[in-house]
């Protein structure tokens, strides 16, 4: 019983934790595309900064994933 509830908790931890970063990465990419459309010459720089910012945003989802893994396996 305890194990079942822990499974639900792990699922909720990563499921809820992925919402924010998902929206964030979507917004980042849409803005980057907009910038690319306005100024195609700056493509390389936009792409580099976009990947960097996505890495930061994604890190928050990774924190949730770590919590989920801790709940599940430790």
């Amino acid at each position, binding site marked *: 019983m*305890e*194990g079942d509830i822990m499974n639900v908790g792990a699922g909720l931890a990563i499921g809820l934790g992925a919402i924010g970063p998902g929206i964030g990465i979507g917004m980042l990419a849409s803005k980057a595309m907009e910038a690319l459309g306005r100024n195609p010459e700056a493509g390389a720089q936009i792409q580099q900064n976009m990947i960097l910012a996505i*890495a930061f945003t994604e*890190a928050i989802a*990774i924190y949730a994933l*770590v919590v989920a893994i801790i709940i599940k*396996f430790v």
Partner: protein
Amino acid sequence: MSKILGNPRSIAISIICVAVLVISIFGGALGNTLGFGFFASSLPAIQLPAEKIVDGFNTPVGKWDLMNTMVTTWLAMLVLIVVSLIIRRNLKDVPGRLQALFEVVMEFFLSLCEQIAGKEKARRFFPLVFTIFIFIVAANWMGVLPGFGTVGRIAGPEEIAHHHDAHDYHDPALVTTTHESKESKAKHHGSDEAQEDGHDSHLGTVKLHVFRDYKTIPVAALSPGSLEEELTFSEYDEKNGNVGEGKRAGHLVPFLRSANTDLNMSLAIALIAMVMVHFWGFSILGFFGHAGKFISFKSGPIGFFVGILELISELGRIISFTFRLFGNIFAGEVLLMAMAFLLPLIGIIPFLGLELFVGLIQAFVFAMLTLVFASMASISHNDGDHH
């Protein structure tokens, strides 16, 4: 089209591809639910802390054990040292391929440092930033090599029970059947019975895996077809520790595990980076110049609390440094394991590429953040007011 199909070699290749696809879909854990699963090995027991390979020795500050992540760290260091020695010995005006690669990477980072920190400070920050980058890249990319996480020693049931805080568990296979030990076994059984509940809550969900027992060499690997043979602790007790001829139950403790899946490793790099950032802050701005950012009485109570907040955010930086790297790499390793478990042979291939990319990006992010923090720490807050 008919030319391609008519070629016997391309027919052979496409037949092999289809065969591999079918084997991996029906042979893996996915196929196991359909009643096949002949190729599926059990999913390795995922452990957060690094695992012990060899018992170490006692030192004045505590016991020192050889952990599997430590071995990988040493390997990464060895690779970097050997590569740097090779490049150093063959330095030429007209670079060869290896030298050219490293020149490109180094120039990229040096120009990045100059962009962010300015020409003067760039030379000062560059060695640490670049060292962090190449070390993390080497350590991360090593983690996707074959053999990492799949070959190791077997941890017996008693050791696993010990990890799950069931210290009074005794492996029935190891208890000899002399009269004396039978008595003590009976006693233990009685005491086990008394605290059955506590015992079960720790070990009830833990699965033991079955490995082939090579008596002469203490090496084990996950073997295909072992998924069906998983058993729980109570089943193991019922069988009296006898899981079959030439087989042993337990968990796999890999000899090699990606270095940054150990929280200690990423914390150590984060601490080195932040200590150096503040060292540069103190040495460039002077003691009071740098400490004044955190504890200041000049601008009233609000300024004081802003300083305290800055101090807390410095701690937050260490934590986010640590967990960003650790989380990405650990999640990647778990992902690779799960895909190899679900779809053996092919499921893992796209994710290997993803892991190479993630390893590079995380190393780059770590180095970049160190650089940005260093250049922020070396700029005085009051520059605008006084000059």
